[in-house]
């Protein structure tokens, strides 16, 4: 299965590791160059540096051929826009997004292209 994950935080990175260990073709997109450099040694995961809300970057990262897109950034509005692009522009079959703030959970439904799971933030 071809998978694109937007956001290489703790959640996105863990999912990338699990899915790539299960022999899926995983691309991880991350905005922060430093974080990309940090993850350089991640085995069997293709890393792409850039803004996953940018449709050109998503296309370049292979969104058209993806079976699954996961939006796992720390910002709910970004996750919603990534889901929308994945579903509407790239026709991705499965789209899921992380809900960062409980009060935004009501937005995460079919209107934005995916299904969701809540992921409460750890206190810092």
């Amino acid at each position, binding site marked *: 299965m071809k998978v694109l994950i937007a956001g290489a935080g703790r959640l996105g990175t863990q999912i990338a590791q699990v899915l790539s260990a299960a022999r899926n073709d995983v691309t991880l997109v991350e905005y922060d160059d430093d974080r990309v450099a940090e993850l350089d040694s991640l085995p069997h995961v293709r890393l792409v540096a850039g803004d996953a809300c940018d449709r*050109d970057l998503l296309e370049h990262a292979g969104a058209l051929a993806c079976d699954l897109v996961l939006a796992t950034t720390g910002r*709910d*509005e970004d996750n*919603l*826009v990534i889901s*929308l692009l994945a579903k509407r522009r790239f026709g991705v079959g499965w789209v899921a997004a992380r809900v960062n703030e409980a*009060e935004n959970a009501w937005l995460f439904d079919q*209107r934005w292209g995916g299904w969701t799971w809540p992921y409460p933030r750890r206190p810092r």
Partner: protein
Amino acid sequence: MTRRSLVANLAAQLVTEGHDVRLIDRRPKARQMLSPGFPGAFHVGNGFSRAVLEAAGIVHADAFVAVTSGDNGNIVSARTAKDTYRVPIVLASIQDPHRADVCRELGIPTISSVRLTGRQVTEFDVDGEIRVVEITRAGRSLLPAHGVLAESGDLVTFSVTATALGRLGGFLDKELGT
């Protein structure tokens, strides 16, 4: 939802015209940029929070304008206003041309906060590519006749061929120094 220059002026003008204006901003401090006697309500919170939107009266709103500095947040709140709350007039300010496309595909017109005041609006026309099709001033539509000058608070609507979008964007950015 607020970006300094644009919003304080827009809000003040709408109040002058007798509209009931409500503002939402994440930062409590944003209230300070409004004039001291500003009669409109100010709600602190997220522009796509159901509780905040409903407290601000979105259910009965005639218009909703999303003008934060974040394109994605503006897309989310504008679409929520349009599709969830059926607000009749919804506009969003979008900086990135690609995201402006996304917004227009959702049926939400985008606005750009550039300073056109005092310029002849027809000077932006490029034959076959860019045309000013309408000016909305104080709630009324004008056809942009030759010699009409843009006034503060005008909403200028452009019709642009897809290939000339970049050109218009660059033109508004550079020529006008915004």
